[in-house]
């Protein structure tokens, strides 16, 4: 009930401001504040989670394409032994395909000339570029 009474400012006019309250009162005041913050964000969590679920149910993802892939019109070129992990080449090829959205031939793979991990660098660039102040 004490927490509920604090929800409305008028129910506690200038109360804590008088400075005449005991430390125990201040502890209760802070506990109420934390409950309100956690209650607000917890409530948002439940609503957002429910909303997300409803939206996903009402707008299901497009079913995956099930038709068989056509046979390749031309045989793939023989892979060049680059000394790289085949899984890495596959991942890079997939990334290029997603980006270009067209046919391509991967000619060479060169490591970036930097001492900083590329992912970290890219993430940092994006974040810092879009959040300048604070």
């Amino acid at each position, binding site marked *: 009930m004490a927490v509920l009474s604090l929800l409305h400012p008028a129910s506690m006019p200038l109360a804590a401001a008088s*400075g005449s309250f005991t430390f125990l009162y201040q502890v209760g005041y802070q506990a109420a*504040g934390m409950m*309100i*913050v956690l209650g*607000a*964000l917890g409530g*948002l969590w439940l609503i957002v989670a429910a909303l997300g679920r409803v*939206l996903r149910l009402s707008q299901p993802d497009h079913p995956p394409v099930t038709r068989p892939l056509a046979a390749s019109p031309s045989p793939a070129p023989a892979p060049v032994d680059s000394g790289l992990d085949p899984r890495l080449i596959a991942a890079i090829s997939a990334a290029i395909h997603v980006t270009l959205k067209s046919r391509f031939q991967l000619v060479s793979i060169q490591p970036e000339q930097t001492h900083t991990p590329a992912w*970290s660098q890219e993430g940092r660039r994006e974040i810092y570029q879009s959040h300048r*102040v604070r």
Partner: protein
Amino acid sequence: MYDNLVNFLQLTAFNLVTWQMCVMWIVVLVLFYLAVFKEFEPLLLVPIAFGALIANLPTQGVVNQAPGPVLAPFDARVVAWHVRVGDEVKEGMKLATLAPTNPNARDEPVLVARSHGKLISIVAPVGAVVLEGQPLTEVYSNEPGGLFYYLSKGIHWELFPPLIFLGVGALTDFGPLIARPITLLLGGAAQLGVAMTFLGATLLGFSSGEAASIGIIGGADGPTAIFTANKLAPHLLSAIAVAAYSYMSLVPLIQPPIMRLLTTKKERLIRMKSLRPVSKLERLLFAVLVTVVCILLVPAASALIAMLMLGNFLRECGVTDRLVKASQNEIINVITIFLGTSVGMTMTGEAFLRAETLKIIGLGVVAFGISTAGGILMAKVLNLFLRNDRINPLIGSAGVSAVPMAARVSHVEGQKYDTGNYLLMHAMGPNVAGVIGTAVIAGYYIATLGGH
């Protein structure tokens, strides 16, 4: 020629330099060093430091008020007038001696002119008892106030922090938070430092309003700290703003030891599941939802929440590109310059060189530490209930706002133990939740402590 030189020297301001100004010049140099050479929040610290430099020079026509009524700065009794009707007054001239009616008040008993002009009336004669804000006398002049008198209205009238939030909203991607909304709780738990520092500040003798303003430093949210301090403890504004922005830039130094102390190696190695894509409709509904829920709950924080979510709605709706770009660039950059210099202008030697400033700086680091711990501990608690999709507790520390620095610290700390663990986007969830959480607790304080 000798007379000309003497006359010129009498017009210079060397004789107006005080020892407080000299000390503040050293403070300004330290701030410049941190901002320029150490790159500690330079976008804010450079304007703040430059504003502080101007505030601690005997300037003319920069900070003087517009002529008009001179109001009582606190509840007081008029002891003596040092000027008479018809006198020409200048900025800094002693007008009257006041005796605070509150025996516990620490206010300066001298009323000083803040504008130039002619004294045209004395409203409160000697012996009169006046309340804060009541007119004491009136100064008339054809000249307007100084540049920073008008700019500082952006803080006093609480215009700048919400406008900064407009830009912040336009820059913030709430996608990670919407994809994993449970991380909202981490942003809430990180307000623990705010609450605990409030208690610590009251034990050190600060009033409730002052303690709340100091505690908000733990939220690591500069605009909210300024907004709250301006409402509840405007005399501490400069110290609180400097502490908040300095500690935000020190997040990479403050947080990691606490993160290591409160987590096990096994916990630091937790890999979180990839975040699901979030639709445009979800993002728009989220902005509206947060606006409605937070304003209904804490209307005192309406200005901050409303502008934050307006900026975000502009960003996510996809049809207001020009407004988004203006919010993300021109508006936030211009306001940042004005806000920073206006905050710096409050750093006069008399206001800053006090024991309270050292206490605030000390309490600020405590607030940051406890807020960091609060987020981490909440993640550990949640993991007790989450079996399949556990949270790496390192992202809990990002619940202090400090966007995006705190999220990056979580990511870097995680990569020290697993180079393939990318926590950055996961940490952005609690990071932006912290912005909302700090605004909510600030609204709670303002509502209950009677901010005007």
